[in-house]
């Protein structure tokens, strides 16, 4: 349908992230003088349908810093394939110059110094400006939200997601699908969804008791755009009751259900759909595999794994578009659809450089109103980072934010070993930056925050590491959950990612004594974000705040406790 060569020509001609010239470590002003809003938004409107994709905003209403992963290992057929390339390899694959704005947006290299030059990214008021500009060029553009929207900040927690619902309603999406939203509890989710002025989609959201499609979440919705009948099919996160506490939404069941996806595609095609779009929270590798197995999907708008790609991936005549996270990017995809076929497309991953894109005044006012009641509490400065200390999370293994959280758990909960979940959300903090309460909540906010303290045997610790590793490194993407490896403190280990489950993790060592972990011995373990009902302990943000407050200035040695083989 679309030859790779045609596609590349189009991408080269249109992508904002191409052809960026190299910058040295220039000052902020110099870096930004070469950027303009017009240039970031420049797009020659194409064809007859426009899609706008945002996903995994994680309640980040304000501009933030976000460091992309340094370690992102692919296994099986995905080894060395996008999105499992980082840094210089990523730049080489997409022709991105070192130190360019695209390198800053899409890779981790020289993050702290580039961040000082290019500034913060995201902010829903900037996103609003971009959406309005696209709508000015194409008034009936479809705005689609991939979910993980009503989770992840101080205000989102305290309003049970209402701040994000209000802000997104003002942005007027046409459809949405879901993941972390369900951790608000099914009662709250049901209440909000019933009020939404747009479609809440999920072909894989089922009633758990009867194993039937859940009434509240239709599988798809039709839209007439540019004379084209467009079907948008929703695909929620498949493994919600496993990766998150199922007891918070016991009425619902999920799963990949790609056979039903095929049925839905056939059904909407039979009903006259000329363009079929899947709004997905599968994660990138799962979407790639689903594109290969399901026939007739023209576009998959991919979320969950926080992947940002400057070109769509194309497989089995399906475009897979990945739009990043935390409000850092907006994707625009223009399509030429004639007689039920996509004849061509134009795509642009628009980086939301917050100092370059003007905030939309209406959205700014709305955001400030949502934040006002909480501003004093969340602006309080708790500590600061040392001059060489960046705090970030994203990556297959511990980031520095995770190291700090694990250190806090050991110190505040008096434990030998600590564990922190391998979630992919949470903005970064630059060296020499004040750490506010809001910053701490940005990396810890959730509805099951209890920091437990308990004893576990060495054998059981091994079982946990093996189990989580298989959720990340199983060679079949359908068996992956899309999170990263559980982060550990006080414990070192070796991992061979290509081994089968049960054989990946070896040489587990208790760091404080240097002794091997004894399978039969018990260790005191502190952790948080247990998926079990009835977990007890103080909320993790209190634990981290107390620790940072005592430390004052955060400066941690490099973490070398995990040795990776087979990457």
């Amino acid at each position, binding site marked *: 349908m679309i030859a790779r060569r045609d596609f590349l020509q189009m991408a080269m001609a249109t992508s904002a992230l191409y052809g960026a010239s190299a910058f040295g470590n220039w000052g902020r002003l110099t870096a930004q003088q070469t950027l303009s809003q017009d240039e970031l938004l420049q797009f020659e409107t194409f064809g007859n349908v426009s899609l706008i994709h945002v996903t995994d905003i994680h309640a980040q209403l304000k501009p933030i810093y976000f460091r992309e992963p340094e370690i992102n290992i692919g296994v099986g057929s995905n080894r060395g394939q996008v999105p499992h390339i980082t840094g210089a390899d990523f730049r080489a694959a997409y022709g991105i110059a070192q130190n360019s704005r695209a390198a800053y947006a899409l890779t981790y290299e020289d993050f702290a110094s580039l961040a000082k030059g290019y500034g913060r990214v995201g902010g829903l008021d900037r996103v609003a400006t971009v959406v309005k500009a696209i709508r000015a060029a194409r008034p009936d553009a479809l705005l689609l939200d991939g979910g993980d929207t009503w989770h992840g900040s101080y205000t989102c927690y305290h309003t049970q997601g209402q701040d994000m619902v209000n802000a997104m309603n003002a942005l007027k999406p046409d459809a949405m699908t879901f993941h972390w939203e369900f951790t608000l509890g099914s009662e709250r989710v049901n209440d909000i969804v019933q009020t939404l002025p747009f479609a809440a989609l999920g072909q894989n959201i089922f009633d758990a008791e009867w194993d039937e499609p859940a009434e509240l979440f239709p599988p798809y919705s039709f839209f007439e755009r540019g004379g084209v009948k467009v079907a948008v099919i929703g695909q929620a996160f498949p493994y919600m009751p496993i990766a998150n506490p199922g007891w918070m939404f016991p009425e619902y069941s999920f799963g990949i259900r790609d056979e039903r996806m095929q049925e839905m595609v056939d059904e909407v095609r039979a009903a006259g759909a000329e363009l079929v779009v899947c709004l997905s929270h599968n994660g990138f590798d799962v979407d790639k595999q689903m594109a290969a197995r399901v026939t007739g999907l023209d576009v998959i708008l991919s979320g969950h794994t926080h992947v940002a790609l400057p070109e769509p991936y194309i497989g089995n005549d399906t475009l897979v578009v990945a739009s990043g996270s935390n409000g850092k990017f907006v994707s625009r995809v223009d399509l030429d659809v004639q007689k039920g076929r996509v004849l061509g497309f134009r795509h642009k991953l628009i980086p939301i450089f917050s100092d370059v894109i003007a905030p939309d005044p209406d959205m700014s006012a709305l955001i400030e109103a949502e934040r006002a009641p909480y501003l004093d509490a969340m602006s309080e400065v708790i500590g600061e980072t040392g001059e060489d200390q960046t705090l970030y999370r994203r990556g297959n293994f511990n980031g520095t934010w995770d190291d700090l959280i694990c250190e806090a758990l050991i110190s505040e909960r008096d434990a030998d070993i600590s564990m922190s*979940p391998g979630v992919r959300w949470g903005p970064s903090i630059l060296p020499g930056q004040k750490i506010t309460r809001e910053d701490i909540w940005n990396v810890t906010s959730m509805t099951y925050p209890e920091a437990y303290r308990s004893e576990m045997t060495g054998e059981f610790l091994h079982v946990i590491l093996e189990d989580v590793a298989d959720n990340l490194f199983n060679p079949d993407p359908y068996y992956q959950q899309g999170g990263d490896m559980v982060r550990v403190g006080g414990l070192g280990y070796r991992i061979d990612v290509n081994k089968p489950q049960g054989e990946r993790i070896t040489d587990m060592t208790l760091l404080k004594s240097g002794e091997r972990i004894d399978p039969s011995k018990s260790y005191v373990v502190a952790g948080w974000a247990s998926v079990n009902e009835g977990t007890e302990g103080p909320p993790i943000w209190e634990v981290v705040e107390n620790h940072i407050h005592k430390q004052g200035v955060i400066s941690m040695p490099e973490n070398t406790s995990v040795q990776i083989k087979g990457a």
Partner: protein
Amino acid sequence: MTLSRRDFMTVTGCAVAFSGLAALPAHASLVDEQIKAFTGGAEIGQGGIELDAPEIAENGNTVPINVSAPGAASIMLLASGNPVPSVATFNFGPLSGARAGSTRIRLIKTQDVVAIAKMEDGTFKMTQATVKVTIGGCGG
């Protein structure tokens, strides 16, 4: 102190709602015996039988399984990793409409669920699906 299973269920972090902690002995021989008893040692073909099972169980204690094989006289379901692998055998008469069955089964650990159909012409068809039983947690 050693943790009892119940304590464990309430404390563990980033993970855990687990079954099948300890490695159980392989039950390959039991499965082979069951298959042999069902087929009488006849050759088993592939195709013509569909097994619908989740890739990862949301709850290992109740995993929904659907199986269908047009033209089947009976279909046997086995959970290859359970201490007792036999799950169910669905029998169909000449007046049966769909030759399909649905049930929910308990899986003690990650394993293959096996379905074997005895066709009306006396031939056999087999298929299997891996269902992962995991402690979970850590979803992005």
